[in-house]
């Protein structure tokens, strides 16, 4: 049960988007549709899990002062690996997400978990932490993408549900900020009711 608890912590209690407010750039930049949001979330989750595992393995050997640069290099290596794999096997998604794939390197969530969790915990715990936080991030991005796609173009996962053009502004940049703002309000409201 402990395992489940660890996973669910990333989705609700320590949700990276709605509670910790980290990784805003990809959150806003890639969620023009539910599918894009989900793709970005999963790519981040893979990097987060792999880098958590690697860092928990080597952190004992790294001198304190070069800790951060070492972590950044490790993370950058995994990001590039993910980049190549996506280019080869999911070229469509890769070209939509574009610049935001290499920018996973500077996503505060990844470095944050490396520093705050993986460097102090065992391999298995770090892996679970990576998956949990990654799932939380994926869930928030998918929800935001879902809302923006539904309001902006009247479809969900590319399937047209509502007639007409929708409120275009939600697909454009301002809609990203506004939709995320209102989703956060909703999240806060629900959380204050439950807890």
């Amino acid at each position, binding site marked *: 049960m402990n395992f489940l608890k660890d996973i669910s912590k990333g989705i609700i209690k320590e949700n990276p988007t709605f509670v910790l*407010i*980290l*990784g*805003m*750039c*990809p959150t*806003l*930049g890639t969620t023009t549709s539910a599918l894009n949001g989900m793709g970005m979330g999963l790519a981040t989750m893979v990097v987060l899990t792999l880098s958590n595992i690697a860092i928990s393995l080597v952190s004992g050997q790294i001198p304190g002062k070069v800790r*951060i*640069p070492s972590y*950044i*290099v490790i993370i*950058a*290596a995994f*990001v*590039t690996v993910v*980049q*190549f794999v996506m280019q080869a096997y999911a070229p469509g998604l890769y070209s939509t997400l574009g*610049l935001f794939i*290499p*920018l996973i*390197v*500077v*996503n*505060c969530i990844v*470095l944050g978990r490396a520093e705050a969790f993986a460097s102090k915990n065992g391999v298995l715990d770090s892996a679970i932490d990576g998956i949990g936080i990654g799932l939380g991030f994926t869930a928030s991005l998918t929800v935001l993408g879902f809302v923006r796609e539904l309001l902006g173009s009247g479809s969900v996962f590319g399937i047209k549900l509502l007639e007409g053009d929708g409120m275009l*502004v939600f697909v*454009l*940049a*301002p*809609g*990203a*900020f*506004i939709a*995320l*703002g*209102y989703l*956060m*309000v909703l999240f*806060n*409201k629900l959380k*204050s009711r439950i807890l």
Partner: protein
Amino acid sequence: MEYIIIIISAVFVNNILLSQFLGVCPFLGVSNKVSTAAGMSGAVIFVIAVSTLVTYLLQYYVLIPLGIEFMQTIAFILVIAALVQMVEIILKKISPSLYQALGIFLPLITTNCAVLGVALIVVTKEFTFGGEAHMLNLAEAMVYAIASAVGFGVAMVIFAGLREHLDLVNVPKVFKGAPIALITAGILALAFMGFAGLV
């Protein structure tokens, strides 16, 4: 003429923060006061200018000739991290007063995606600026990078001004903090959309 188009396009039309979502973390994090926002912007402009120069030269004179473009992300982020560190040390020696003003922001800049973002954009994206699509040359790349950073600063300072006023009004509890900031940013982004079509 071409440089003017680059500048207007990078500062207003394709504002790096409000239309490309690069550097949103510091945008939300250190925009409580106009003075801190201005300090952060100054540091970002400086680091973006230097790091773009170095990564541009690195890309065209080291990575491409050696055929190791796959090291791009690692090389760029290392350069940026090292540069930020160096800038910190040099500023401390040369201008203690400037160091005092910018110092606390410098460590935060390594993970500001605007810096890595601009460095990657200038070597991977084709630009048109009214003419044929082409890769940027060094002068264009520098103008684009600095203009983007200035765009970041403009958005930061305006936004901080708005937030100072927000502090004084009575905001519903569930909207406090990040939600109202995001919605304000959305309205600001709407205003910036008015610049579309200017270039």
